[in-house]
């Protein structure tokens, strides 16, 4: 039992000889004020009031919480309005019942099925994209080509400053690290080979691909996810237009065209960054340029270029795919943007590893 002053909410329990509990409540029950604590175990509970003053929802909520496990509490002594408020919470039928709480095994199964269907959806989207390009090539697809210049500008031209900054710093960092090691064997001149080859063959494409994931994939996922949310994608379907063809193809094409160009740009800027470091030491500009040009064969340059086309495609596709399958809520759009970046970067690194194996096998 807990009882303080008359104006405060209080509750008292008494157990009768036959095991029934009599719960008496009184005082003023207001949300935000201290509510009493009672604990009882019984099959039969009768509730009555004694000096009950004003009350708001906190009283029926308190009674609802305490009487939930009792099959049919006796509320007949309560004021009619309070009875009605308590009973209402018990009697409103749940017409669209939610699924019962799932067990561990069920959750594991659901996760497996969801993962499977997620990969299935991804493959389906790749299929739609490939088919879309094929149909576009044959002039049968409805594609919003008006978007292409805008997307090329957004994914390409607008990305130039960030690509320049990161490319320059990457070349600079590689040159610093390389110089420390090469000085030990007296081969500082090879720092140009290191920077030029690494940028042309590996870092230019990889870095530009990652930048594309960070800024373009997420933008695509947000745009297409929002279109899902506002049913614009449904409207396209209703008009007989395939949203993948209409929306994704120009975006994917734009990024696949622009990332290789950005990658070449990043390579040159990276080599320049390396030059700043190398030429501040023993090397002359002539020596650095001669070594850099000698180091990068056409094969290496083309290898880097091919990679960047694929990385651009992956970055754009990841954004479009996650946008198309985004849940129809503000949260879903946010998730789509995050997962687009994660998916894009993961696939780019995997693709890079695959390229490394293939190029090694074919001695490229």
């Amino acid at each position: 039992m807990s009882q303080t002053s008359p104006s405060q909410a209080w509750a008292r329990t008494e157990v009768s000889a036959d095991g029934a509990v009599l719960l008496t409540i009184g005082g003023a029950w207001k949300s935000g004020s201290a509510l009493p604590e009672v604990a009882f175990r019984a099959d039969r509970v009768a509730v009555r009031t004694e000096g009950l003053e004003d009350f708001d929802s906190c009283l029926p909520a308190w009674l609802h919480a305490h009487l939930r496990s009792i099959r049919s509490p006796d509320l007949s002594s309560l004021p009619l309005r309070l009875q009605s408020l308590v009973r209402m919470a018990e009697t409103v039928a749940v017409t669209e019942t939610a699924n019962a709480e799932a067990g561990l095994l069920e959750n594991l199964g659901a996760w497996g099925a969801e993962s499977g269907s997620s990969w299935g959806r991804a493959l389906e989207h790749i299929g739609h994209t490939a088919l879309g390009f094929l149909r576009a090539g044959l002039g049968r697809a409805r594609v919003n080509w008006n978007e292409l210049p805008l997307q090329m500008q957004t994914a390409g031209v607008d990305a130039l400053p960030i690509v320049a900054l990161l490319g320059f710093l990457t070349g600079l960092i590689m040159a610093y690290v390389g110089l420390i090691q090469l000085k030990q064997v007296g081969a500082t001149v090879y720092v140009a080979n290191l920077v030029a080859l690494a940028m042309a063959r590996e870092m230019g494409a990889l870095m530009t691909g990652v930048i594309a994931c960070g800024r373009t994939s997420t933008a695509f996922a947000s745009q297409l996810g929002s279109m899902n949310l506002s049913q614009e994608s449904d409207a396209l379907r209703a008009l007989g237009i395939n949203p993948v063809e209409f929306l994704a193809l120009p975006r994917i094409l734009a990024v696949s065209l622009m990332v290789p160009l950005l990658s070449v740009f990043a390579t040159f800027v990276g080599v320049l960054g390396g030059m700043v470091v190398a030429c501040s030491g023993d090397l002359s500009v002539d020596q650095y340029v001669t070594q850099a040009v000698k180091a990068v064969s056409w094969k290496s340059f083309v290898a880097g270029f091919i990679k960047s086309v694929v990385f651009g495609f992956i970055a754009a596709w990841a954004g479009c795919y996650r946008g198309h399958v985004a849940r129809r809520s503000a949260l879903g759009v946010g998730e789509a943007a995050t997962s687009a970046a994660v998916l894009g970067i993961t696939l780019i690194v995997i693709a890079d590893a695959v390229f490394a194996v293939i190029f090694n096998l074919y001695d490229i």
Partner: protein
Amino acid sequence: MGHGGKAIMSGITFALKPGRILAVVGPSGCGKSTLMRALSGLDDPVSGSSRLLGRDLTSVSTEEREQALRRLGFLFQGSALFSSLTLRENVELPIREFLSPPRREQRQLAEYKLSLVGLADAMDKLPSEISGGMAKRAALARALALDPEVLFLDEPGAGLDPLTAARMDELILRVREAFGTTIVMVSHEVPSILRTADFCVYLDTETGRMEAYAPPRDFLSLGAHPRAYAFFQQNHRN
């Protein structure tokens, strides 16, 4: 009364007693939702005033207006549940912000309000995981979170099938009965209006004025309100 500073309705005058349900009726675009926003103090009328709970909401400070808004509950047409929060968290939000009870009581109140609307088993679901009907009921639970004195419902039956809409009407009546809440409801669903409303305001797009203020049954016969009668006949048949 208007939108974006432009008057679209004028001559709207009525009074509503506590505990009554008022339906604001009229064709699409007649300004029903705008009237509700003006009545509730969410928007200001272009001219005139709106007295609610004894206060002229057009002439109070922002702080006073916010305090007045806390005594009101809103059910928006699109439910407007916060998509990143579960249903329980959606209902808990105003309770936590304005009542600040201990955590346990906060949960009790939220669970009780969700039980009232029959969502006791779906409290931990996100809005994206439930149906439109459930979202409406969850939004109603959130609107009831602070025991509002006046509840504003914008198209409570919109997008619901007739059966679910009828259940929603039943719920509205139960809420009025249990809490004694005054309810202002915007709707163009005539069956729903006939089931729930005590009084009806008919807004006419052609005249730009309030044509009638009467019990909804009055609009079922050709009397003093021919436009409202025509609207009711048309929508009742559909």
